[in-house]
């Protein structure tokens, strides 16, 4: 095998606060023809920056300060714009994280597809369109002859991601950089995209750099894995060695994340009044029905995980409970008493009892308010504490979420990391002294290590304060870690519900089965086995459609 890409001791710097700060501190990378390298690390580890540097490209405000990038004998760091133009898109291609944001919404997919090949003079327009159809077929897109002539908003996220892979393939490049291509997708969609990518990369013997923070995904895709931490390489090894015998502590800690699991709680005593009871709720946005006859109970000190794909009505159920979306039919009861449907009609105490923690801590905290004020406001609002008492209460809350009060009280949210922001979100919910908290995808925007910290914190708080959680998530690993009971939703209906243990042991409802089997596992053969099991032509859409 010949070496395709050789990066030696590369250093990248980013400009902020009037000085250059290091992003990558001397990383080596070697890629053979047809080999797939997995690049993993937390956010801020410099994965994407390194991936782009492999194309000789840097984002605005970033520069390559030293080191070399050699692609097939061509020095990309010092290459002229003309040389790079002749390579990028033709021999090196890039697949971005969000296909929806990367396609130009004003042009049909195929128009964007044939732009590369015709610009580079690889194919004529007609040839390229015919080739595109063939690629769409290979990537198992429905209606390959016709789908390219749609606009980006007319196809689903998973399909768009595959269309983008086809676009990257258009010139049959030697190297493709995949930057988290499946992170924004549901588990069931993710499988289709992963299988398609793997197949087409194998078929055309394309080398690839696959950037992700999901270990289970990278285990399916890569021949080799490189772990990055804050711009430094931690270790590199081939996939099987890395998974079975990691040598570095950091790598081991990444591997261990998924091991967190709470002990099973005793079953609910019969006849106990649930803290929250959702009774036969129907809801609609305007005239579009979203929920159909949803019912479940949440008991004191227990966690109910609500799982399902996006669009299954999980968050809508939460909006019904909080009163933001009054249900069309059915009712919400709290401690046995029916609540007014609209939150504006609920009294202060009813509002206090149910709190919410949001998915995106960035938008959930007012960027212009200090941490102290964010937490103090609900305390003051509900309990009327002022002055020293208020400060003492806020300090205690900060202690509870394991942040040093004196250090964080006066900071602004922008000065905190993602995990710390999420902790502030938790503290704000706790400040109201609620009995019940809705956690809406609270860990899905976080790195695995940080997410685990949040889950442990939530578990600890639940034990201390006897809180009940409604845990909305699409990640079954999270469910396994924290839930007592599980509610599976699909298309606005509850498909199955019960104790966690019962849910994770067969037999399941067919949809639960599909969800469960779609969760990537650390085993590098998992995807291969799964595809065989399901029958290669039967993955994804087909499997769902069959039910």
């Amino acid at each position: 095998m010949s070496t395709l890409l050789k990066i030696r001791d590369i250093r990248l710097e980013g400009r902020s606060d009037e000085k250059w700060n290091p992003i990558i501190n001397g990383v080596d990378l070697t890629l053979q023809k047809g080999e797939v390298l997995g690049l993993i690390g937390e956010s801020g580890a410099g994965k994407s920056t390194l991936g782009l540097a492999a194309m000789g490209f840097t984002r605005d405000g970033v520069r390559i300060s030293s080191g070399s990038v050699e692609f097939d004998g061509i020095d990309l760091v010092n290459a002229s714009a003309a040389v790079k133009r002749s390579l990028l898109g033709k021999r090196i291609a890039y697949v971005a994280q969000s296909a929806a944001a990367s396609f130009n919404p004003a042009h049909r997919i195929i128009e964007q597809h044939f732009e590369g090949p015709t610009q580079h003079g690889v194919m004529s327009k007609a040839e390229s369109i015919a080739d595109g159809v063939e690629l769409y077929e290979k990537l198992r897109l429905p209606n390959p002859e016709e789908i390219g002539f749609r606009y980006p908003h007319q196809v689903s996220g998973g399909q768009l991601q595959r269309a983008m892979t086809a676009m990257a393939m258009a010139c049959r490049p030697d190297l493709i950089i995949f930057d988290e291509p499946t992170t924004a997708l549901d588990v069931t969609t993710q499988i289709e995209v992963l299988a398609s990518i793997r197949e087409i990369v194998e078929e055309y013997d394309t080398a690839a750099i696959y950037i992700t923070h999901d270990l289970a995904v990278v285990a399916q895709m890569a021949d080799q894995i490189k772990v990055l931490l804050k711009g430094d390489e931690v270790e590199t090894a081939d996939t099987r060695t890395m998974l079975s015998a990691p040598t570095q502590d950091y790598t081991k800690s990444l591997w261990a994340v998924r091991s967190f699991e709470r002990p099973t709680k005793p079953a609910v005593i019969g006849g106990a009044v649930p803290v929250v009871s959702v009774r036969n709720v129907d809801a609609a946005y305007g005239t579009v029905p979203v929920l159909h006859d949803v019912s479940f109970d949440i008991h004191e000190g227990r966690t109910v995980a609500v799982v399902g794909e996006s669009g299954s009505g999980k968050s809508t159920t939460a909006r019904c409970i909080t009163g933001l979306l009054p249900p069309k039919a059915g009712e919400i009861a709290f401690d046995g008493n029916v609540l007014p449907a609209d939150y504006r009609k609920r009294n202060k105490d009813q509002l206090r009892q149910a709190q919410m923690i949001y998915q995106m801590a960035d938008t959930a905290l007012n960027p212009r308010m200090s941490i102290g004020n964010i937490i103090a406001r609900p305390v003051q609002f509900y309990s009327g504490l002022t002055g020293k008492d208020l400060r003492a209460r806020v300090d205690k809350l900060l202690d509870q979420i394991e942040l040093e009060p004196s250090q964080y009280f006066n900071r602004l949210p922008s000065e905190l990391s993602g995990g710390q922001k999420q902790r502030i979100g938790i503290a704000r919910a706790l400040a109201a002294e609620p009995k019940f908290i809705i956690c809406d995808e609270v860990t899905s925007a976080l790195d695995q290590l940080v997410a685990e910290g949040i889950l442990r914190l939530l578990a600890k708080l639940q034990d201390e304060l006897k809180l009940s959680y409604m845990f909305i998530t699409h990640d079954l690993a999270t469910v396994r870690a924290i839930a007592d009971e599980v509610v599976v939703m699909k298309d606005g209906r509850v498909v199955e519900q019960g104790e966690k243990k019962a849910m994770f042991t067969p037999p399941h409802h067919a949809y639960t089965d599909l969800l469960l089997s779609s969760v990537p596992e650390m085993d590098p053969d998992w995807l291969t086995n799964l595809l065989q099991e399901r029958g290669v032509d039967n993955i994804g859409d087909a499997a769902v459609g069959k039910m």
Partner: protein
Amino acid sequence: MITILWIVGVLLAILALAFGFRWAGQMATSNAPGFRDMPLSVAFGYVFGVVLLIWAVRFYFQPLMNEQGVPVASVIFFRWAIQGLIIAMIAAFAFKQFGKFVGTEWSKKLFRSMPLTAAFGILVIIIYAIFAIFAGAIAPYGQAEILGAANVLPGGDVATGGNPDYPLGTDNIGRDILSRLIYGAQNTVGIAFITTLLAFVIGVTLGFLAATLGGWLDQLLSRGVDVLMAIPSLIFALLLMTIASVWAPRIGIPLTYFMVVIIAVIDSTRVYRLARAVALNIVVMDYIEAAKLRGEGLAYLVFREILPNATAPLLAEFGLRFCFVFLTIAALSFLGVGIQPPLSDWGTMVKDLAPFINFAQFAPLAAVTPLLAAGAIALLTVAVNFVVDWMLHKSSGLKE
């Protein structure tokens, strides 16, 4: 025809020079990225700039008088412009250096990262503010005081028709132009400031209310604003001012009060649109939802949650809006329905002295008199826009 050929010829020559320049650069730097990746258009720009600079220097040193002893107006004005520019640059630079070493840590950091244009803008605004506030103490004469000599030319030199008592000359009925300029700052800028403030109070309050409450209130306000905006603003203001000028003496309220309210209401429609749009983006944030679910009242939502997040775009709009209001007042005064004599005002001053502009060809000094007030308006507008540009750039978080 010849002129067109000349222009084409010169452009082609510059293009050839640009090609040579780039080639020489590539040779000299042994094909390093800087010159290697330079597009021809950029090289053309560089050469064009140099040619322009050479022409400017040559033109600057042309004699001020021709053989007959008549002053050449174009050269004189060009010299003044260049000198003014250089003085402005030096002042801005000095001010920025001053700011870097004096003041709090925060202000020092601000000055370090500030472009020269913004420093210039701030300096001009400060100077205007000082003149406006202390006009009574600074101005040598009263604004309505009619002095002995009319039409004294600026410059203060008796040989060229000036008078050292009136450094900027006197107007057509013998009032000191310098004093009127200084009082004009107080009247025009002060009234413009109050008007803008009022426009913002009305526009922001209604805009935020519409965005937060939505529903029929939003529809009512927005459609009402659409109706007001459909009428050309200057014509509308003129119409209302004409009506007001009939009413004002009858009720005994000065016309200026009417003007402030009329312009504020007309301009508040633009502020309303911006405030509503900004607030609409903020009310969908989760922290607003959290506050609503907490049971917070409208006042808390608007003043504590929305307003702090909307200040950057609103402040930038304030600067721009101030310029527009200011120009509207000057325009209304120019048309005779704005600030009423004997109060001095820059718009009125331009109107009163406008005929002198005809003397530009043979008596540049005389032509300057109307330009002084016009220049004062232009300078403030430019300064405010410099500052607003910088603030917008800062709040957008763009990196250079």
